[in-house]
C-alpha cells in the first residue's frame, strides 16, 4: 500500500508538470492519482493498512515521511474520492494550462498537508495552497474583481500561514524538533505555550476555513475561480480541518475547557453570519461560498464539543462531537463540490452568474437540476441525505451538554445548539431560494442558448451519486470512521454510535435513534407505491390549465417571486444587521411620474472590519516605504546598523 501511496503522490507531482504540455491529460492523470490516494486512505482508515513512505530526508529536517494512518486516511480518502470526481468534471471543461497545473498542485499540496508527519513539510504544503489560491483566484483576467479576489484570499491565507509559522516556531523552540510525534510526546510539558499554540492554530486554520473574522475572502474567491476549479478550492477545507484535528486534538491534546467553549462560540457565530449573508446573496458562487463558511462553522461547533468532552473527561461526548464534526466535513465536502460543479454548468449554459435573471431552467437542464438538487438537499440538511445525518448527530452531541458538570460549558453548548438551530432554519430558506430561483418557476428573462453542458459528464454524475448515497450508507461510514478516529480517542468509541445494524444514535445509548438507511428505503418505497397506486386507481386523463394568478392573465414571470423576495423578510426584520434601507425615488420622465426603488445594503464586515484594516495596512506600508529611499548610502547605513546590533546582541544572548 505504501507503494500505491507513493505512486499516487508522484503522479500528482507529475501532473503538475504535465499540465504545461497538455492540461487535459494532466487533469486525467490527477484524477487517477486522486483515486489511488483515496483508495489508500479508505484502506488505512479502515485499519487494513498503515501506508507511509519517506521523502526528502536530505532536506535536513530529519526523517520526513508522508503517512496515511487512521486519521490521515479519512481525510486522504475524502480528498481522493471527491478530488477524482472533480478532476473528471474539470477535464470536461478544457482547462487552461494554468488552471490544470494549479488544480494538480492544490491537490498535491492538500495531500501533502494531510500526509506529512512533520511541521516543515506541513507548512511548505500549506503555503503552496496559499500561493495556489492566490494564483487561481486571479487567473481569470476577464473578471474585473479577479485580482482583488486573489489578493484578498492570498492575503488572509498568508496571515493564517504566518500564524501557523509562529505556532510551529514556538513549538520548535520549546521542544527542539519539527516532528509531530515529538510534539505529541512533549505536549503535557508545554505549559502556556500550548494555549498560545492553540490560539495560533485556530487563527491559521480558521483563515482557510472562513471562521469569523476571516470569512471575507472565501465567497469572492469561489466566484472568481475559473470554471469548476472553485470545487478544487473547496477541497482545501479537508486540509484545514485535518490540521485542526491533528494538531489541536491529537498533538496538543488534553485541552482545558475554554478551548472547546471558544470553538463552539466561534463556530456558532460563523455559522450564523455565513448563512445570514448567504440568504441575501444573489450571485450563485458567492452564495455557495457563504454556505461553505456556514458549514465550516458547524463543523467547528462539533469539534468544540469534542474538545469539551476531552476536557471534562467524557470520552463518549468527545466521540460524539468528533464523529459529528468529521461526518459534517465529509458530507459538506462532497455536496459543496457537487454544487460548485453544477453552478459552473449553469453558468456555462446561461452566461449568468446571478440568480435574478434565471428561473425555470429545470426542464432545460435536467441533469444539472438533478445534481444541483442533490447537493442542495444535502447542504440544507434534509433527510435522508448526508447533510441531515451529520447535522442530526451534531444536535445530539450538543444536547449532551447536561452531562458536563461545568455551568459555563453547558451554557455555551446550549447557545451553540440554539445558533445551530437558527442556522438550520435560515439555511432551508436560503437553499429554497437558490434552487427555486434557478430551476423552478417560469423563466424571468429570455436567455439565449449558450454553450450547453454535455450530457456525458462522468465527474458530475459521480459527484451526484456520491451525494445521493452518502446519507443512506451512513452506518457503514460511521463504522469506518470509528476505526480511523480510534487513534484520537484511544479506542473505537465511535462504533457505539451504530446501535442496530442500520440504526444510528449518538454515542450514548438510549438517548435517541435515527436511521437514514431505513428512511431512504422507506421514502423510496412509499414514493414508488404512491406512484403505482395513483396510476392504477386514478383516471388516466390529464388536463393542463394555466397557473392561477388571482384570476388575472398577467404573465407569471412578471409576478412570481424573485430570489430577492425570499430574503426580503429577513432583511426587513434584521435591518440592523444588514443596514438594509429601501427608498423610492420619484422622477419626472416624459411628463409622467416614474418611481424607482433603490436598495442600500451596507456590507458590515467589509466596511467596518476589512476596509479599515486594509487601509491601515496600506498606510503603514506607505510609511515603511520611506525606508526604501533608493539611496545606496542609506542602504549601507542600514547594513552597518544591523551588523552593530547583531554584534551587540549575540554576546548578550550568549550569557
Amino acid at each position: 500500500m505504501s507503494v500505491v501511496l507513493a505512486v499516487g503522490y508522484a503522479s500528482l507531482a507529475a501532473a503538475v508538470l504535465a499540465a504545461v504540455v497538455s492540461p487535459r491529460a494532466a487533469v486525467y492523470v490527477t484524477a487517477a492519482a486522486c483515486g489511488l490516494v483515496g483508495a489508500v486512505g479508505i484502506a488505512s482508515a479502515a485499519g487494513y493498512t498503515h501506508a507511509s513512505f519517506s521523502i526528502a530526508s536530505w532536506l535536513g529536517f530529519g526523517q520526513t515521511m508522508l503517512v496515511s494512518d487512521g486519521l490521515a486516511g479519512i481525510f486522504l480518502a475524502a480528498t481522493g474520492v471527491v478530488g477524482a470526481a472533480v478532476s473528471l468534471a474539470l477535464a470536461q471543461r478544457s482547462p487552461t494550462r494554468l488552471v490544470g497545473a494549479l488544480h494538480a498542485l492544490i491537490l498535491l499540496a492538500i495531500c501533502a498537508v494531510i500526509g506529512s508527519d512533520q511541521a516543515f513539510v506541513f507548512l511548505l504544503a500549506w503555503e503552496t495552497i496559499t500561493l495556489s489560491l492566490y494564483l487561481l483566484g486571479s487567473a481569470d483576467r476577464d473578471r474585473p474583481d479577479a485580482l482583488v479576489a486573489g489578493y484578498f484570499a492570498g492575503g488572509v491565507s498568508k496571515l493564517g500561514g504566518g500564524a501557523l509559522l509562529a505556532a510551529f516556531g514556538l513549538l520548535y523552540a520549546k521542544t527542539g524538533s519539527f516532528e509531530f510525534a515529538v510534539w505529541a510526546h512533549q505536549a503535557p510539558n508545554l505549559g502556556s505555550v500550548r494555549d498560545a499554540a492553540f490560539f495560533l492554530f485556530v487563527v491559521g486554520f480558521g483563515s482557510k476555513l472562513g471562521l469569523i473574522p476571516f470569512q471575507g475572502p472565501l465567497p469572492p474567491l469561489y466566484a472568481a475561480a475559473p470554471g469548476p476549479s472553485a470545487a478544487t478550492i473547496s477541497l482545501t477545507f479537508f486540509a484545514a480541518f485535518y490540521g485542526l484535528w491533528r494538531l489541536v486534538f491529537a498533538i496538543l491534546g488534553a485541552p482545558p475547557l475554554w478551548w472547546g467553549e471558544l470553538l463552539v462560540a466561534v463556530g456558532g457565530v460563523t455559522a450564523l453570519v455565513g448563512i445570514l449573508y448567504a440568504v441575501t446573496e444573489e450571485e450563485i458562487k458567492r452564495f455557495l461560498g457563504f454556505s461553505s463558511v456556514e458549514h465550516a462553522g458547524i463543523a467547528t461547533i462539533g469539534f468544540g464539543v469534542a474538545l469539551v468532552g476531552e476536557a471534562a473527561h467524557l470520552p463518549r461526548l468527545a466521540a460524539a462531537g468528533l464523529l459529528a464534526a468529521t461526518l459534517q466535513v465529509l458530507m459538506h465536502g462532497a455536496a459543496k463540490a457537487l454544487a460548485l460543479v453544477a453552478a459552473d454548468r449553469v453558468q456555462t449554459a446561461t452566461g449568468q452568474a446571478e440568480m435574478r435573471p434565471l428561473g425555470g431552467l429545470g426542464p432545460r437542464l435536467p441533469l444539472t437540476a438533478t445534481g444541483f438538487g442533490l447537493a442542495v438537499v444535502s447542504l440544507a440538511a434534509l433527510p435522508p441525505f448526508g447533510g441531515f445525518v451529520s447535522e442530526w448527530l451534531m444536535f445530539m452531541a450538543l444536547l449532551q451538554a447536561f452531562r458536563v458538570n461545568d455551568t459555563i460549558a453547558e451554557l455555551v453548548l446550549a447557545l451553540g445548539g440554539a445558533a445551530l438551530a437558527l442556522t438550520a432554519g435560515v439555511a432551508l430558506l436560503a437553499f429554497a431560494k437558490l434552487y427555486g430561483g434557478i430551476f423552478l418557476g417560469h423563466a424571468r428573462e429570455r436567455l439565449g442558448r449558450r454553450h450547453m453542458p454535455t450530457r456525458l459528464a462522468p465527474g458530475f454524475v459521480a459527484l451526484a451519486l456520491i451525494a445521493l448515497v452518502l446519507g443512506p450508507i451512513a452506518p457503514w461510514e460511521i463504522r469506518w470512521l470509528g476505526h480511523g478516529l480510534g487513534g484520537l480517542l484511544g479506542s473505537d468509541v465511535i462504533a457505539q454510535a451504530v446501535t442496530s445494524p442500520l440504526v444510528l444514535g449518538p454515542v450514548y445509548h438510549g438517548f435517541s435513534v435515527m436511521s437514514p438507511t431505513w428512511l431512504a428505503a422507506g421514502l423510496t418505497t412509499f414514493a414508488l407505491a404512491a406512484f403505482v397506486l395513483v396510476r392504477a386507481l386514478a383516471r388516466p386523463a390529464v388536463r393542463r390549465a394555466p397557473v392561477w394568478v388571482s384570476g388575472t392573465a398577467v404573465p407569471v414571470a412578471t409576478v412570481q417571486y424573485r430570489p430577492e423576495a425570499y430574503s426580503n423578510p429577513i432583511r426587513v426584520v434584521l435591518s440592523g444587521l444588514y443596514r438594509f434601507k429601501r427608498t423610492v425615488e420619484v422622477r419626472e420622465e416624459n411628463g409622467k411620474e416614474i418611481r424607482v426603488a433603490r436598495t442600500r445594503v451596507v456590507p458590515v464586515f467589509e466596511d467596518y472590519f476589512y476596509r479599515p484594516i486594509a487601509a491601515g495596512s496600506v498606510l503603514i506600508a506607505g510609511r515603511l516605504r520611506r525606508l526604501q529611499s533608493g539611496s545606496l548610502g542609506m542602504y549601507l547605513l542600514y547594513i552597518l546598523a544591523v551588523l552593530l546590533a547583531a554584534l551587540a546582541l549575540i554576546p548578550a544572548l550568549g550569557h
Partner: protein
Amino acid sequence: MLKWLFRGLRHGVVTTRYPARPEPAPPGFRGRIAVLGPGDAPQSLGDLCPTGAIQVEGGRVSVDRGLCVLCGACVANAPERFGFEAEYETAVRRRSSLVVGERLATALEGLRPTLGDRSRTLRRSIHIRHVDAGSDGAEEWEIQALTNPYYDMQRLGLFFTPTPRHADLLLVTGGVTNSMREPLLRAYEVMPEPKAVVAVGTDACSGGFSATTGEVVGGVDQVLPVDVYVPGSPPAPIAILHGLLLAAGVVTEEAAA
C-alpha cells in the same frame, strides 16, 4: 386564552340541525314570491315589477323568481294575486323551475348530475371556491354567515378553499360584469373535474336590476354551465346551504310550489 374558551362554551350550542331537522323561516320572512289567485290578469300587471319578472300572457300570470328581487311591489299593489312565502328552501336545479305561476315553461331542459352522483366521496366533503362576479355585497355577507356557529357549514363537510385548483364547487355571486367575465372563466377552467357551479342571488341567476345596463353580461349561466340556482336578494344562509346540498346531491329538490 382561557377566558376565550369559557366565553365560547358559555352559550352552549346554537347550531341549527338543518338538514336533519327542518329549519323554518321566521314569520313574515320574504323567502320567495308565489302566484295566488285566479287567472284573467290584465297586461298592466307586468309593469308592477321593476325587473320585469312578471309576465302576463293571455291573462295567465307567471313570475320568474330568477329575476325577482323580492322588493314586494307586486304584493303591495296586487295582494290577491301575489304573496310572499316564508320559505328558506328556494334553490332549484333548472333555470326553468324558477318560473312559477300559470304560464309554464315550454321545454324542460336536461338535469345535470349532482356532484354526489359523479363521485361518492363528494357527498360528504366539498371544497368551495367563491367568486364575486359583480354582486352588491349582500350575498357575500350571507355566504360568510355560513361559517358562524348558527349554521356551521363545516359540520356538513363543506369548506371554503382559497384556490380554485382545490375546489369542487364554484359559488358565484352577482351578474357577470364585463371585467369579471374573464377571471370567472379562468376560475372555472382551472378547477379539476368533477366540478359544479352554484349561482347565488338573483343577480347571479339573471342579472337582476343590472341585466339591462350594458355593463353586465347577464346571469352566470350566460358564461358558465350552472348546476344550481339560488334566487333571492339576497338568499338567506339556509337557502344557500340548501343550494349547496342540492348541488352535492345530499338533498333533493321539492316540487316547485
